[in-house]
């Protein structure tokens, strides 16, 4: 966990890969210079162009830092007007991004690490898996989605390690939610890193606690500034009361959280 310097940079959209109608993988190149150092699990605050009814930045997980191509990857789900404008960006357009923000996942070098993602929450797990693999670890993934069409970046994940799948409708992998998958219920891992919808993260956290497995989750509380100034995105913690998700998180060990699980 390092304190990386924050930057505000203009990026050019080099590629917008759309997955169905609801998701876009944006590949962004800094208008000048190299991408700053970023850790897996950190996020970016993106100024939304072409969106007349929004004006705050949108916090988006860093999905990948491609050093060879000098590209920042952001995986965006069309959730509202702001993210819709991001999904609809065209190649060549400019995007103003503040990064890197927050504290990311712990890079464990002991024992098996299972990376559990749901929906668009798989985004930071790609970078985490990539960095773990670069460090000689063998990350395993458990990815859940509503349907096969909502399973994002599967090819990329398959390149990094073993991928287990669940879908709510059974259209791919194990039928049901991630906590029904044997790889998770077996408890044969030392650490879990989880990012996805809140009910999923709570269920994974509950299972991890029952089994005594170390578990980190990435929160996405509503925020304005993304840098610890507005104090809007707070999460109640056991050790320090309300803390900013944007600076103390977004990744938290579940032992810090006061979730009733």
């Amino acid at each position: 966990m390092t304190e990386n310097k924050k930057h505000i940079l203009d990026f050019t959209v080099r590629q917008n890969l759309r997955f169905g109608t609801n998701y876009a993988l944006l590949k962004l190149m800094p208008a000048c210079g190299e991408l700053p150092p970023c850790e897996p699990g950190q996020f970016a605050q993106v100024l939304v162009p072409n969106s007349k009814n929004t004006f705050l930045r949108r916090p988006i997980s860093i999905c990948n830092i491609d050093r060879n191509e000098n590209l920042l990857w952001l995986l965006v789900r069309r959730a509202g007007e702001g993210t819709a404008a991001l999904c609809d960006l065209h190649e060549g357009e400019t995007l103003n991004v503040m990064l890197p923000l927050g504290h990311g996942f712990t890079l464990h070098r002991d024992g098996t690490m299972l990376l559990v993602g749901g929906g668009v929450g798989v985004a930071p797990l790609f970078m985490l898996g990539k960095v773990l693999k670069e460090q000689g670890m063998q990350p395993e993934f458990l990815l859940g989605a509503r349907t096969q069409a909502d399973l994002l970046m599967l090819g990329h994940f398959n390149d990094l390690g073993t991928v287990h799948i669940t879908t709510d409708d059974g259209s791919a992998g194990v039928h049901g939610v991630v906590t029904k998958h044997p790889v998770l219920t077996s408890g044969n891992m030392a650490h879990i890193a989880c990012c996805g919808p809140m009910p999923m993260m709570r269920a994974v956290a509950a299972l991890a606690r029952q089994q005594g497995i170390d578990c980190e989750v990435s929160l996405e509380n509503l925020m304005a500034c993304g840098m610890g100034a507005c104090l809007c995105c707070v999460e109640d913690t056991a050790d320090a009361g309300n803390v900013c998700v944007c600076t103390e998180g977004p990744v938290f060990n579940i032992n810090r959280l006061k979730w009733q699980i």
Partner: protein
Amino acid sequence: MANLSVNIGNLRLKNPVMTASGTFGYGEEFADLIDLNQLGGIIVKGTTRMPRQGNPYPRMVETPSGMLNAVGLQNKGVDYFVEHIYPRICDLDTAIIVNVSGSTIDDYVAVCERLNPLDKVAAVEINISCPNVKQGGMTFGTTCTGAQSVVSACRKAYDGTMIVKLTPNVTDVTEIARAAQEAGADALSLTNTFLGMAIDVERQTPCLSTITGGLSGPCIRPIAVRMVWQVAKAVNVPVIGLGGIMNGRDALEFILAGATAVQFGTANFVDPQATIKAIGYINDYLDRHGLDSVNQLIGALKA
């Protein structure tokens, strides 16, 4: 280079651009992105006698050209500020102003007394306008007697420059402004946020844990400009304008309306460098209009 310095009572600011309380942390959060020493002043987070956890999540929601917040003065208390934060920021070459909040008059006085000996605190801003606390805060700022009682008590406890931050949630802001002036305010800042509310229609629930919250951002700017214009005409002390200022042009609206200085608030969330850009803009504006000093623009509205 035009002269950008302005005076707030006995306090000289290098330029009229400050950051609003609760939108800029203690400045340190922005140090990677801007040179804090270029600012006219930093008004740090609302500080109370005892630590406060603030309101439950959710505390914010974006609204058209604005946002509602319901933070509720979360801070670690004045002792923590004096012991841990002040030593880190006191050597900045900008005016450090502490926003003072409380639930009772004794609370305000206690914070003022604790800050009074600190050489590098350039001023206090007495917050009688927070809409997000159950006791104190805005309730003091909505009546003349309430405002007077807090301000006169703080005046006795604090020897330096005392700014009083007014709420716009009143029928006639000029009455409150005059009351604060008579009670000893050296300057007035306005406006704090406007009481507002947003509803999640699908869930049929309020968007904020507190149901209502404070509206900020460019949507409130025309109302804030109008109030600053009214108050500047009604009082003799300097007025500091804020409310939806996003850039240098917006800042000049307030200055032309009668504000001696301005505060950037919500803008810091969108563009953390907005203040620095605005200082450059104001300087260029003065050059472009053949003016030597920003003081020539204060209240210079042609109407």
